[in-house]
């Protein structure tokens, strides 16, 4: 089968690989119908996630049709079309039973901190991902959700990560009615977080990025104010100024380790790997939120250390919340939102490429070429 193949930092290609096999009675094999490239994939693509092995296949955002199931699979059958949440979760451990499907104890041997994730390095379990014609889906009784008959596959694939993660970013911000919410990052995740902030009753939503085309997109899609951090001087002072010198009630970091905007952070975090990515956005978030406010961390950082003003977090009495999104927990509510027209996931898709052109897709998304917001890869088998 055709699959994406990682060769080293910023080097990927599509090659023929062996078909995935059933290795556990709860496994299923899925024929991939859509797979996306995510901001999280960029941390891998840039070589910033430890234990990313050459020859791995990335892709944690995919939907597909079940073509084979293990002996214990009862909840889905061959022929079902399913949304596959990006987290691999057993459904039985102490954490899964608290609906912490992003923190499963039985899907990753390599790390104590992170649950299993498709196509996300050996630090996240060493599973191959869905940027391929076929993928192995463990715990098929737990993760996959059948795509409603009236749902577009493009909407469905955005429910594997982007929509739930933006939503959980807003949820974790603890928004109260009327709150001012600032979102750092106008990538797909930040755009969805800004849009979802309204669902929790926000009174004002502001998004910050440096790509004008993304800011324009966010103004329309998320109905929010949008500012370019290269034009507003010190972003923290700017936010103080426009919030009557209070700071925002809630701030969401939807940037993570690839953040720009601070040379020291960029050099130590992204070039020299002396910290687990550049923490510029989180740094700004802690300083821009008001005293007693909440910082919601959706942006992904590496497993070592980052330079953030933790002293300010203490002095200001902040609450910091973060997690990998518990996709399965949120899906019933979000499917409802999509069906009722509250959310419009597929409007985020700007590019569609055949899997064969995966290298172009990564380059384009990574360097924000051709006004790219979200890229969908189409495996050759998707059209069968």
């Amino acid at each position: 089968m055709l699959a994406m193949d990682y060769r080293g930092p910023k080097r990927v290609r599509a090659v023929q690989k062996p078909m995935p096999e059933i290795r556990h009675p709860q496994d299923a094999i899925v024929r991939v119908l859509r797979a996306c490239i995510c901001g999280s994939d960029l941390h891998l693509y840039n070589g910033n996630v430890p234990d990313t092995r050459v020859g791995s296949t990335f892709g944690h955002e995919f939907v597909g049709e079940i073509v084979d199931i293990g002996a214990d699979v009862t909840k889905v059958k061959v022929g079902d079309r399913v949304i596959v949440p990006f987290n691999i979760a057993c459904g039985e451990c102490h954490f899964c039973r608290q609906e912490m499907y992003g923190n499963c104890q039985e899907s990753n041997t390599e790390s104590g901190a992170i649950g299993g994730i498709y196509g996300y390095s050996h630090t996240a379990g060493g599973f191959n991902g869905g940027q391929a014609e076929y993928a192995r889906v463990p715990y098929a009784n737990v993760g996959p959700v059948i795509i409603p008959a009236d749902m577009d596959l493009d909407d469905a694939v955005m429910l594997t990560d982007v929509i739930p993660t933006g939503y959980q970013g807003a949820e974790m911000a603890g928004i109260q009615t009327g709150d001012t919410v600032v979102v750092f990052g106008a990538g797909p995740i930040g755009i969805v977080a800004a849009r979802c902030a309204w669902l929790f009753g926000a009174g004002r939503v502001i998004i910050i990025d440096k790509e004008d085309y993304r800011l324009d997109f966010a103004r329309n899609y998320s109905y929010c104010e949008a500012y370019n951090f290269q034009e507003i001087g010190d972003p923290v002072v700017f936010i103080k100024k426009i919030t009557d010198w209070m700071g925002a009630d809630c701030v969401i970091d939807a940037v993570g380790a690839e953040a720009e905007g601070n040379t020291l952070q960029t050099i130590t975090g992204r070039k020299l790997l002396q910290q687990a990515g550049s923490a510029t956005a989180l740094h700004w978030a802690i300083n821009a939120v008001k005293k007693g406010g909440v910082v919601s961390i959706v942006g992904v950082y590496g497993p070592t250390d980052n330079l953030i003003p933790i002293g300010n977090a203490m002095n200001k009495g902040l609450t910091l919340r973060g997690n990998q999104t518990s996709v399965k927990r949120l899906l019933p509510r979000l499917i409802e939102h999509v069906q009722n027209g509250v959310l419009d996931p597929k409007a985020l898709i700007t590019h569609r490429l055949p899997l064969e052109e995966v290298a172009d897709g990564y380059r384009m998304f990574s360097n924000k070429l051709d006004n790219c917001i979200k890229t969908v890869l189409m495996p050759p088998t998707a059209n069968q």
Partner: protein
Amino acid sequence: MKDNAINTPIDPKTIKGWGIDADPKNDPTYPMRKRMNAGEDPTPKRRPDNLQPVNVEVLKSIERPKVSAVFGTPAPPSGLSGMIRRQAFKYSENQYKHWLPLIVADRVNVVEGVVTDLFQGKLPNIWAEKGYGMEWKHNRTAFVTKMATIGAVTAGLVVWLSSGKKKKKSEFKAKDYLSRF
């Protein structure tokens, strides 16, 4: 726990005032809705019934007792990078001795990947793998400027290095090879 004798567990309920200000609504773990601590969980150690047979090498974090019930099999550790990774997994994730070798192993692995390609008679198409076609199509001026700058700086460095004290030839070659990947 060698100090168990002096660290005798106490029943918290015997402490005067235990729980008198407990407020279940004050839960900072929102939006976790089904929160329970291990004591409230009737089966905190529950595992899936079936365990994936361990028939490939899986490196296990020393922060957990056993291999997880499922795991990925496609890229077991191999070669020099694999040896480095095995060493790394002797240390917990709390230590740089775990993460730094893994980063080194990743870089070694890239060179191994190129060597494997060459052995299979395949010359990696770096232009295509890096998606430079997209830069050429959508970002040509900046891309050409960047490449020209990198080229000029590299050429300048080469001239500068080779004009100085004569270095041993083999040493120079190895450096150039690594910096390319």
